[in-house]
């Protein structure tokens, strides 16, 4: 998403058709300010990352400071999907369905190594990164990430929300391929899921 240049100072354009006029940019700012400071998370906690997420939401780290006052356990009343933990293939259709049930505008945070890459679970059962299933805005490294890391990711997401433009197309709903239900090409999924590091000698496919 390219950030559209703000109009030069002193130049006031009221032409809404241009998409970057004074009124629309100010309105964008107001709407984004409201959205960024009232993100309601939908926790999708499947593993130990969810424990750190709970710590983040609890009083010591206090997610409510960032406007995340309310955990939306219904996807229909949520803005941010926080996927905390590994996602096995059996959960892939569930995660996809939950994402599609969330109303626009919506964002996704992939929390922890497993949600982002599959982590140490380079096995037949685990999806190698939830970005193969749904679009992800912020990845949080860590196993599991400390609450500070999650808060940093949320602040990054708030910065991204502030850059949204109503006229932009960055928040279009993803359209999966009707036949395969994949939303990115299979070759890219294989590329994203390639074995790396320690997990390379683990396969004994030839047997």
């Amino acid at each position, binding site marked *: 998403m390219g950030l559209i240049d703000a109009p030069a100072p002193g130049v006031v354009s009221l032409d809404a058709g241009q998409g970057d006029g004074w009124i629309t940019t100010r309105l964008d700012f107001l709407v984004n300010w409201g959205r960024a400071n009232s993100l309601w998370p939908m926790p999708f906690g499947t593993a130990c990352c969810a424990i750190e997420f709970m710590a983040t939401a609890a009083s010591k780290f206090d997610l409510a400071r960032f406007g995340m006052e309310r955990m939306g356990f219904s996807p229909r009343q949520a803005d941010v999907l926080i996927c905390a933990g590994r996602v096995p293939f059996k959960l892939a*259709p569930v995660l996809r369905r939950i994402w599609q049930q969330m109303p626009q505008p919506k964002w996704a945070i992939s929390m922890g190594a497993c949600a982002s890459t599959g982590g140490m679970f380079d096995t037949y059962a685990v999806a190698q990164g939830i970005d193969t299933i749904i679009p992800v805005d912020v990845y949080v490294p860590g196993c599991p990430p400390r609450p500070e890391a999650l808060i940093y990711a949320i602040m990054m997401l708030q910065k991204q929300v502030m850059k949204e433009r109503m006229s932009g197309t960055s928040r279009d709903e993803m359209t999966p391929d009707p036949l395969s239900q994949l939303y990115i090409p299979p070759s890219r999924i294989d590329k994203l899921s390639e074995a790396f590091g320690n997990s390379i000698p683990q396969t004994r*496919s030839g047997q």
Partner: protein
Amino acid sequence: MSEFTVIRAGSAPGLPVPATPRNVPHRGGEANPSAATLKAKFGDAIVRVDVVWGETNVVVAMDKALEIITWLHDEPTESYEYLSDVTAVEFRDRGLPIEIIWHLRSLKHRRFLRLKGLIEKGRPLSAPSVYGVYKGADWLERECYDMFGVTFEGHPDLRRILLWEQYAEGYPLRKDFPLRGRFSRAEQLEQALAANPEARYSMEELSVADAYADLPQDMRARIKGGESTGE
């Protein structure tokens, strides 16, 4: 005026207070008395008795396994009323047979017995179901079927339990199964996304395997009314 008697741990009548065993040898040692009883009762059907780390393994002939387990459950002197686990082991050494393993526990006599049935490589993976003796064997045998592909003869509802039903890559705990599965990641994801979760976890699912009569009245009424979950 309580009609219940409080039973404290370790005070089973007629038995010494249990103590944590010390210096247990790896091989050998005192066998579970049930092993000798089995040997006397079933003779050739008992292939071998090992004592490993103080626990007794009895290798039995597969065709007699159900009979032996039923007897162990029913006989008052044995009284193995609790089935802890049903599982299987495949060894990396290809010559070794696949083992089907039953963990039996007698609460009354405070005994633990491990039964093993051997399936030679190349033979069909099939074992008798003990569902008729222990209802708890239902999911244990389904899991064993899911992971190893062992067919339990006589199981009322043998289908996958952990993996989804359309899973086409085989049986993950078998030694010839590659760690990452047989298909490419894109293909695996495609197949997983094609599985419709609401088709799998509907209320109607509960009526599979004749559990309909056990459902609560209101749920039965809702199913009968044609109600379904979902959108």
